[in-house]
């Protein structure tokens, strides 16, 4: 039965947007942890670590995100014999995916700092970790903010793929609402507006942070 698109539908969309944000947050934290490890592996002086980091990035980036969602949702029960909920599967898959991209972004930021800065640290007797921590990372963080926030915005939108393994977030809720009201234009405009309301403040925040760090050096 077709009903009117009403305030209650907007309310349901907003409730669903919570799951979009929650999945994004989990994926960003998980991906951030993977990303830090990958970025450090990729700049380490030890070849095997660099190769391992590169292999991870290549495998994850070379397979569609959709594929990873299926791998973890359908694959884990078959390969490891554990049933996972769509929440768990989506969190693992998105963390895995975000880790590869954030790792690459952060590697680039670390490598954007001139080699002479490492050398100046080494010449003063700082070890690799100390050079990284006191000289390279503080400079790289500033470079990293815009691309990191850019990726976070991508991540918010990409969580819509979670719908394929039964994860109900904003886009999936939009589809369901549309099926009930048959007002595709209105429904998807509302969905788009909610996505915009989540992403726009982030890009603004990124600009503010950048400015602040520039003043504070």
């Amino acid at each position, binding site marked *: 039965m077709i009903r009117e698109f009403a305030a209650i539908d907007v309310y349901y969309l907003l409730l669903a947007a919570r799951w979009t944000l929650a999945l994004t947050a989990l994926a960003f934290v998980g991906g951030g942890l993977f990303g830090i490890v990958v970025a450090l592996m990729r700049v380490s002086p030890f070849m095997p670590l660099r190769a391992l980091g590169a292999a991870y990035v290549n495998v994850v980036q070379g397979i569609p995100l959709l594929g990873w969602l299926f791998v973890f949702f359908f694959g884990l029960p078959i390969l490891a014999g554990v049933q996972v909920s769509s929440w768990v599967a989506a969190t693992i898959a998105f963390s895995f995916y975000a880790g590869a991209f954030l790792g690459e972004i952060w590697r680039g930021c670390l490598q954007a700092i001139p080699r002479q800065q490492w050398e100046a640290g080494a010449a003063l007797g*700082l070890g690799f970790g100390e050079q990284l921590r006191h000289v390279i990372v503080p*400079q790289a963080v500033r470079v990293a903010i815009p691309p990191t926030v850019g990726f976070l915005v991508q991540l918010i939108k990409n969580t819509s793929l979670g719908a394929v393994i039964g994860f109900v977030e904003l886009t999936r809720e939009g589809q369901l609402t549309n099926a009930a009201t048959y007002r595709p234009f209105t429904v998807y405009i509302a969905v788009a507006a909610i996505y915009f309301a989540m992403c726009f403040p982030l890009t603004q925040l990124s600009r503010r942070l950048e400015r602040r760090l520039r003043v504070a050096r």
Partner: protein
Amino acid sequence: MSLVELKGVVKRFGTNTVLDDVSMNVERGEIIAVIGRSGSGKSTMLRCINGLEPVQGGTVVVDGETVSAPGADLRALRQRVGIVFQSYNLFPHLSVEKNITLAPRVVKGIDPGTARELALGVLRRVGLAEKIDAYPDQLSGGQQQRVAIARSLAMQPKLMLFDEITSALDPELTGEVLKVLEQVAAEGMTMILVTHEMGFARRVATRVVFMHQGRIWEEGGAREVLEKPRTPELATFLDAVLH
């Protein structure tokens, strides 16, 4: 025992031999000016002395530590050997004070109060005490290079290496940096400088080393090397830089 002993040092980048059987001893208190064309191996030799470049042959011994041995304690060595670079390489995100005290705090573990005193002390020696809270991008090139010298002095090294430290500066700023160098030399520091400043080399250096094609081609007292070249290569080089 000499402070620095290079014995038959060979350094290659791929198939390109940059240092070809270089041997040299530096005694405490000596001031060595290393001169020669670009690409003659001057800077590479300096970088081999504090282990920034590994060598492919020969031995490098500094203050009793064999730098060229695998597993040498480079960290300990570099606390005793300072190096100042052509491009200053100050840390742009840190104030002058933090630039100077980073390594003393992290490597030697001195406390923050002492650290500021230490920074002030070395800044006075380079005439920049009033810039202690400035950031590198607020300083002129000459001032940045003087801070870099102060940063190196703060580690209280036994030996200081200077890698063409005035080459990126215009003549006016070169003067202020050379003045600081002269003063450090007068305090008895052992120094090895790669330089194109022949007047400075003649005035301050106790010995001049001319490098050519990865070898030490000529060496001796500053005056005799610069005024009475024995090889046509040095004569040609001096002719080119002095005119």
